């Protein structure tokens, strides 16, 4: 900080060339790569054990149906290998001080308990680990071990331990510790590893914290959590994905030997699938806003169900079909031609009758009530700001709106800047967005960062 502030309210500050990017979904990845490829250092902070965010969970992307992993994983690899990107997983920002151009940031880096350099990814530890928990990456459709790699293509592709499900840590070291025994590398697993605090200085901050999905249990009349074959769209997304628990098969939720509800490849396939739009969106009782992507991903899921199970009947219950982007309307027409039944009228309630699900809806265009029996119901859940948005916004000094989305500086002409100089926002954390818009915005945020570093090299304060 410069002291010329004494003779006025104005002083100058060199912009620190490093940048902090918070959140490593596709927005964070894109912004980091843009900045790093321009020759500047990036700290990429990610809360979970891997980068990739939600996009890594998807099977295909609308409307082109190209595979999400295919277009994302190379970017992830690039991030992982980039000499100018310092990737901090299992980390959260806890304090932001300083000034635009010279933010002093404290980062809490949780222990992964497995040495990132030494781990060879052999999997011996996980094979023996007795601790299990629902896999976050599989959206809870399957279990993972307490020591695990979030998914086979994760970056970094190294194991980590979840203390919540680790038997050793839950029993204060009285039980287990079997992973250490079976690890072929000395000193690789340290069950007593401590969290770290990291202090860095950056000139710019890019917020790309993304979203979480709406909790479908809040709409009790759809019976999510009660009826095993009422799924969220994200769960179906994992079922359809070849890397998911069923190797790409769409199956029923069944109980495993220990009584956990999970999906298995031999779970049996549905003969009819109904997709309900706007679950948790466009609803004053939940979120009044439109989540923008659900119509399109529902159409995509309908297509994928049809592709995997051609004989399965698929029904979409919608209010307005929001197929707005490039090629989207065409995609909608295509899905209709594929024989997916489109019903204008949102389902009101679901009951379970002899293992089958009964949906009651109004078929508005045909002026009748439909009581539809379906083997499986997919709830097209909306998007919500991810947890911790409020704390982060207060920490950094950025405004959020009533729904918890970050507010941009100017809704018209500056969709990435914020009222706080030096802080830009990218992706869904600013409001629901599809992938192309997210990527464009992330690049735009990067442009703002590059421009600030490069141009004046100085920031003016008033």
């Amino acid at each position, binding site marked *: 900080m410069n002291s010329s502030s004494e003779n006025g309210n104005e002083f100058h500050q060199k912009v620190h060339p490093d940048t902090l990017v918070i959140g490593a979904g596709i927005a964070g990845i894109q912004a980091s790569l843009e900045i790093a490829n321009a020759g500047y250092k990036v700290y990429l902070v990610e809360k979970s054990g891997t980068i990739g965010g939600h996009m890594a969970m998807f099977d295909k992307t609308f409307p082109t149906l190209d595979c999400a992993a295919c277009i994302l994983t190379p970017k992830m690899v690039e991030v992982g290998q980039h000499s100018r990107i310092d990737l901090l997983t299992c980390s959260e920002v806890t304090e932001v001080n300083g000034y635009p151009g010279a933010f002093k940031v404290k980062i809490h880096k949780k222990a992964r308990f497995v040495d990132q350099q030494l781990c060879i990814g052999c999997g011996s530890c996980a094979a023996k680990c007795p601790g299990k928990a629902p896999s976050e990456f599989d959206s809870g459709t399957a279990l993972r071990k307490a020591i695990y790699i979030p998914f086979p293509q994760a970056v970094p592709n190294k194991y980590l331990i979840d203390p919540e499900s680790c038997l050793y840590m839950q029993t204060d070291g009285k039980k287990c510790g079997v992973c250490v025994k079976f690890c072929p590398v000395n000193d690789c697993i340290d069950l007593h590893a401590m969290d770290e605090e990291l202090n860095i200085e950056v000139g710019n901050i890019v917020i790309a914290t993304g979203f979480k999905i709406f909790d479908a249990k809040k709409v009790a009349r759809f019976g999510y959590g009660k009826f095993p074959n009422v799924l969220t769209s994200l769960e179906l997304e994992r079922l359809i994905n070849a890397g998911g628990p069923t190797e790409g098969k769409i199956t029923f939720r069944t109980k495993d030997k220990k009584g956990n509800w999970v999906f298995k490849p031999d779970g049996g396939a549905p003969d009819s699938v109904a997709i309900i739009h706007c679950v948790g969106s466009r609803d004053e009782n939940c979120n009044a806003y439109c989540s923008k992507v659900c119509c399109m991903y529902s159409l995509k899921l309908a297509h994928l169900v049809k592709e995997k199970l051609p004989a399965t009947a698929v029904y979409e219950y919608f209010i307005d079909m929001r197929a707005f982007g*490039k090629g989207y309307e065409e995609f909608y027409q295509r899905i209709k031609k594929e024989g997916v039944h489109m019903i204008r009228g949102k389902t009101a309630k679901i009951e379970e009758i002899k293992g089958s699900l009964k949906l009651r809806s109004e078929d508005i265009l045909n002026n009748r009530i439909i009581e539809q029996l379906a083997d499986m119901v997919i709830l097209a859940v909306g998007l919500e700001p991810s947890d911790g948005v409020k704390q982060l916004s207060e920490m950094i000094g950025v405004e959020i709106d009533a729904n918890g989305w970050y507010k941009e500086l100017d809704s018209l002409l500056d969709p990435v800047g914020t009222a706080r100089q030096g802080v830009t926002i990218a992706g869904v954390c600013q409001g629901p967005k599809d992938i192309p818009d997210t990527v464009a915005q992330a690049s735009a945020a990067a442009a703002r960062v590059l421009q600030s570093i490069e141009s004046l090299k100085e920031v003016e304060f008033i």
Partner: protein
Amino acid sequence: MEEKRIGVYVCWCGTNIAMMVDVKDVSKEMEKLPGVVLAKNYKYMCSDPGQDMIIKDIKKYNLDRIVVAACSPRIHEITFRNALENAGLNPYMLQMANISEQDSWVHTDRIEATRKAKSLVAAAIRRVIHHKPLKKRIVNVHPNTLIIGGGVAGMSAALELSEAGKKSFLIEKSDQLGGTAAKLKLSFPYLNDVVNDISNLIKRVEKSEHIQVILNAEVQEIHGFIGNFNGIVKTTDEKEYSIEFGNTIVATGLKSFDAGKLKNYGYWKYSEVITSIEFELLVKQGVVVNKKGIVPENIAIIHCAGSRNENYNNYCSRTCCMSALKYANQLRNLLPDANIFEMYADMRTFGRGCEELYTSTSRKGIMFLMFDQRAELPLIKEDERGNGVVIEFKELLSGEEIQVPADLVILMVGMEAHENAKSVSHLSGISMDSNGFFIEKHPKLDPVATTTDGVYVVGSCQAPKDIPDSVSQAKAAVARILATILRGTVEVEVTTAEINADICCGCQFCISVCPYGANSFDAANDVSVVNEVLCKGCGTCATACPSGAISTKHFTDEQILSQIEGLMAKVHELEELETN
């Protein structure tokens, strides 16, 4: 010939390939082919573990050539080339076999698709044998940028560059900056007055020392390649500018749908019927009257004029729903007692704050009516009972055949690509889709770049878009451009044409056919020569050369023919062919 050591990697692509192609069988079969040291398959070859596997194998088995059977090289050739480079192998010792788009995606018979995959991979194996190491080429980047189109997208890009201290040329066809946005009064969804915002933006652009605005101008020619373009800009008063620049941003924007084409709406026939563009003008003046000069009592706003209909444009124009709601609000303020009818097909208020706009608008006594946009457009005819017109259609939400009286009808005309898109696409070497919009490099992960390096498409020339999305795109393009300018250099195509002076006879067929002006005649030696910096490796000259003196690196006749031979040979015959 020394022995080739080829590694073959077959990707599952999750289930995308594995569902239709027996990838395990393919890799097993390929292992038998001569020269193939090993053949493996993996779930996601492009992922970190997949690439790692290739790198480790190259080192361990001393592989000198790699075949990856996966998706289109357009998606992942760069990925795997980098992997080869990381393993210490020349990146051009790679050949990809596309068993995704060209095989698993388009077939339904698993046995046949597997057979085809084998042929494709075998062909790639035969080709890679003839690959030669090529050297990367690096060129300097000129720091200036050419921006075609002075609308919001173009101006935002120029300003963003200007703030980074980089110069740009902003070429605008008309006599003023601002484009479509300059015609607006309010923005959606917050209904802010944008007149000042836009004029401020224009002022900032005009004031910037880093932006050279050229009005009434069109780009006549663009030559060169990323980092090193030059072009000629001509104004209507015949002034010519010769400029040099490193990158190009195309932001030519949109034109609105011609409402006269809509048979049912009688745009030319009824003075009550106007377009949304005309309405913007009216409302900017603050006086809403129809063409007869009468202040309307019944106002109908018809959505999707020219959009979402096979007879006009199939696509959705993305912004009209919100604009229509905006108009309803403006009308409610100006004419508190008027009846306002909104006729829509699907209410597509998807953006942030837009659903809320829809809700608040619906509280203002506006009647929303749904019609069938695909099958049966409303019919506007003269009202026998009153002065204006009457709109007849089947209202879908009630199933009733209804009539709506109107003395002002606003048609929400959709967006179309600008009429000069075609010439710009020729100039800058980018492609257009069937609707006339420019095609981005990748619809998901590269929404602003194009297949021509150094040329970016932003705003509504890429697809219909609102202002913030256009601005985002403009800035995204700037990020990419700044990165190349800051690095100062950029890698360019190495797969250029090459002339064998021992054969060239100086006939000069190659010179006139080169679209990049890369070939010239060396009179002293009586041969043609290629400027590798300008050459983009399109192969036109190699085809045109009657003497067989020109070949394109990485696409030699030998390579292509051996690939074809591999493709034509049945897999089990391949072994024989190779050993002979």
